[in-house]
């Protein structure tokens, strides 16, 4: 299986681009996903992920129905993701009483808006399926360069702000007492999460994106008790899942995103069983 996958990588530039795109996405999924897991904001991240569909739908509708060609679905997703992150962050900071209900409503509204725009878009919308369940082979060279840029921005931001993010994830009161702009850092973290989600949607799609954002860091957390190490291990796991998932998908001719997500889920179950077994031993 591995041999045929390696041979295919050497001969098929589309597959190689897809693998590079997957690895670029894995880098941010391990790093940003670790913040999502330790800050316990998986539900918020899920809402951002699903709101992204509104941007995708709008950009497809503008492109096909109105002839505006300069906006791509990826750019639409990015804009919708960042706006959703800021809105959800504002709700978290100022409307705590009904936070979960409002975030759930935004989750649905985002998806519904996207579906409505797509229903009004002429033609057969293969992009919708690609965005929902992922199609890593669909990554274009332009998308790849945007992926690299966003990877770079996220990496530089995290290197400079990691200790501040660590502080707001662990103890917001102490961070505030130390003069950190806790609310601004929280909003920035949500924006980084939204950008990472858009990157990951290329690989596994909207429906499965939370798998890649949460499972590699959750597995890594079993093996280490330091956030920086957790990020490194999560990146390695995420890359391994991407490669193995793509190899399995190539061999059996399965959908790539679903195969990667399923492999991640199985690995998580095995890791959990192993840690429970060790604990009881």
């Amino acid at each position, binding site marked *: 299986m591995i041999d045929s996958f390696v041979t295919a990588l050497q001969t098929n530039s589309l597959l190689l681009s897809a693998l590079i795109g997957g690895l670029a996405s894995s880098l941010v999924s391990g790093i940003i996903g670790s913040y999502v897991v330790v800050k316990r904001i998986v539900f918020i991240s899920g809402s951002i992920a699903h709101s992204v569909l509104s941007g995708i739908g709008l950009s497809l509708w503008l492109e096909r129905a109105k002839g505006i060609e300069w906006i791509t679905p990826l750019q639409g997703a990015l804009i919708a993701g960042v706006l959703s992150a800021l809105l959800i962050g504002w709700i978290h900071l100022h409307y705590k009483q009904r936070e979960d209900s409002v975030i759930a409503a935004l989750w649905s509204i985002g998806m519904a808006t996207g579906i409505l725009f797509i229903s009004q878009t002429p033609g057969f919308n293969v992009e919708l399926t690609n965005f929902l369940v992922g199609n890593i082979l669909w990554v274009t060279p332009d998308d790849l360069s945007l992926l690299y840029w966003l990877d770079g921005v996220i990496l530089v931001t995290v290197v400079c702000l990691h*200790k501040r993010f660590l502080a707001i994830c662990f103890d917001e009161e102490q961070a505030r007492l130390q003069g950190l702009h806790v609310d601004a850092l929280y909003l920035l973290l949500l924006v980084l999460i939204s950008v990472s989600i858009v990157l990951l949607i290329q690989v596994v799609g909207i429906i499965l994106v939370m798998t890649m954002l949460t499972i590699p860091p959750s597995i890594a957390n079993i093996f*280490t008790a330091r956030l920086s190490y957790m990020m490194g291990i999560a990146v390695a796991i995420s890359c391994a899942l991407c490669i193995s998932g793509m190899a399995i998908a190539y061999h059996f001719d399965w959908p790539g995103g679903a195969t990667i997500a399923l492999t991640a889920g199985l690995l998580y179950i095995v890791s959990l069983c192993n840690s429970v077994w060790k604990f009881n031993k």
Partner: protein
Amino acid sequence: MKEAIKFDHVNFAYQEAPIIADASFTVVPGEFVGIIGPNGGGKTTLLRLIMGFLAPSSGLIQVYGATPSHAQKHLGYVPQTIRFDKQFPISVLELVLGGLLSRLPWYGFFSKQDVEKARQSLETVGLADMEKRPFGTLSGGQAQRALIARALVGDPELLLLDEPTANVDTRVEMEVYELLKRLQGKMTILMVTHNLNAAIGLVERVLCVQKQITILSPKQVCEHFTLGLYHAPLIKLPSSGAKP
């Protein structure tokens, strides 16, 4: 001498419910003050007002002559260990460095001096050999001392402790009080406690917070208080706001 803390007719209410009513008192630099009161009486609210996390509905609060939000650099805060996530991946040294975040440069790396200072702070609380341990694996007493190290690393003038001996056994409780005894006089200390019996030898004054704030000397704290009962009318109290 400038007061460490000054409350002047301070009121605070959550929505319509009054939590602190007409509180007036001062704390002088270097003093060790115990804070007692029933659950929901306003003890933690009092600390949060001092730290500037809450704004009073009316009245004036000053910390070292400034508004609380402008005096945060003078403060060290020790919260209860129970509120932390034991699974959170953070080492003891990283935790203590959290007390020096105000000095962190924009590029996000602590200087060697700051790291050394954090190590010294761990040595002060007797955790020098545990800097690499995950915070979640520490015992209750060790975790409390690590949080004290974090509060001390920035050389605070005012140390606020919120029930530092809650959920620890008697031996650990004594260790924590022994540590606080060593700090006594070097900084102003305000400590919320449910067990004044053990701390009565340390504190110079006691604030009884039960919506209103009553100020007592340890001598005035009768058996009712040391047993954890807060029946102010049962004992002869000075009027609210008076400094013994």
